[in-house]
């Protein structure tokens, strides 16, 4: 199966502090890939490099076979949901979607057409003309996910997309994203620190202090280390030898 995202020997330093150390990862087309790590593990730095918010220092990133150096081709096939809220609070949902659609080169009509089905699935039809400021956290997140789908991305990048939401909202969003993988063959890079969001069949990479410590399907890793659950596995893999 083709790699939709390929990271090769990525290292990144903030001044003298090494944030990422020789990271290599491949994400297959149509897979749900979880990058799991604690705070300050380097997840968001990696996310920022993939989305070109930070400039590459070492290594190479390829999205859909295009090097990020040719970012115009590489970035047009991704959809992103950032950790921080990125909607304009004073505009309505519809206006936010129109603005993003324009950034992707779509007219207002084309924008709504491209996500018509998803608006219904996310039950956002009645919220389209509501100012974002009046929406709750769960709805805002849904709008951001909806927005990320406007350009029919092949790869969806989500950085801690469920952070700050209640359990019900978290799993509703997670279920929706997993369905996207199944139904539309969209590849997903799900960045999280929450163990309960990972399923045994998910491809998983454990990142700790800027290094990838393990990568495989969760069920294979559990078997390899003879552990029953992810929490236990994570603690074992990230333990520090004294």
């Amino acid at each position, binding site marked *: 199966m083709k790699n939709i995202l390929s990271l090769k020997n990525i290292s990144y330093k903030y001044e003298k502090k090494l*944030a990422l150390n020789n990271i290599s990862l491949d994400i297959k087309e149509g897979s749900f890939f979880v990058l799991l790590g604690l705070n300050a593990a380097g997840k*968001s*730095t990696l996310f920022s490099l993939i989305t*070109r918010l930070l400039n590459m220092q070492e290594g190479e990133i390829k999205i859909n076979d295009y090097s990020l150096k040719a*970012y115009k081709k590489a*970035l047009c096939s991704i959809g*992103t949901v950032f950790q921080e809220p990125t*909607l304009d609070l004073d*505009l309505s949902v519809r206006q936010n979607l129109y603005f993003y659609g324009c*950034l992707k080169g779509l007219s207002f009509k084309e924008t709504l057409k491209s996500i018509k089905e998803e608006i219904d699935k996310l039950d956002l039809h009645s919220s389209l003309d509501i100012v974002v400021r009046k929406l709750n956290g769960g709805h805002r997140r849904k709008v951001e996910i909806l927005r990320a789908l406007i350009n029919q991305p092949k790869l969806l990048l989500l950085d801690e997309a469920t952070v700050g939401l209640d359990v019900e909202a978290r799993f509703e969003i997670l279920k929706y994203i997993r369905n996207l993988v199944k139904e539309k063959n969209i590849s997903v890079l799900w960045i999280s620190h929450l163990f309960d969001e990972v399923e045994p069949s998910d491809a998983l990479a454990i990142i700790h202090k800027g290094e990838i410590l393990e990568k495989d399907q969760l069920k294979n890793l559990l078997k390899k280390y003879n552990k029953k659950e992810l929490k236990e596995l994570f603690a074992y893999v990230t333990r520090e030898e004294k």
Partner: protein
Amino acid sequence: MKILFYCAWGIIYKELLRFVKQKSRFLSALVRPLLWLFIFSSGFKMALGLAIIPPYETYITYETYIVPGLIGMILLFNGMQSSLTMLFDREMGSMKILLSSHISRNYLLFCKMFATAIVSCIQSMAFLFIAYCYGIEMEIWAYVLVLPVILFTSIILNALALFISSVIKQLENFAAVMNFVIFPMFFLSSALYPLWKMKDSSVFLYSLSSYNPFTHIVEFIRFTLYLKFDSSLLFIIVFLFVSSLSLAFMGYKSKKTGSK
């Protein structure tokens, strides 16, 4: 081409929406120069005698003299307000949407400056209309020609503001910009008094004012409003346009927008 067009339209659309929704922003942008026109000039005109200087061919009232400077004031403050919004967007994270786009970052920044310039144009024309009702009349062609000049010069100020916003690390530091950039830029210019008046009191301040880009912007607007053309001014303005855009683009090249 279609992508670039819709992208520019999207940014202008958002800027206009913000402008329409923030009525207080429009009002304050208009009230500020009107206060200077109606109140400050009333008190100041008796103290300041104006000789006949280009582009004027006859004696003019002080109110007439400061109109181009007050248009400059609208552009300057609007540019700074816009970059403040960008700074806010950067801190809140919403700027990531722009900076992670597959479209050239420089093009997006230019569209942002252009969108702000359109808003500045609307505010300036509203101000000129009120000034007209107050009795400061220009020729009809002056109103037509000053529009692209306002658009062009506004982009220069927006670019400078954008560069400043790229240098500032925290939103709180923006107050310092008011004191160290905006006010000196405004007062060390020909917006409120001709430079020869300043030369009488301080040659040093006169020299500073002559190198102030804002002085040239105000003079370019002034000349256009009186349907005069000065090629050296145009040259300076084009130079300012290129250099300010370069600064803004450099400021946001590989801009770190993360919270780290």
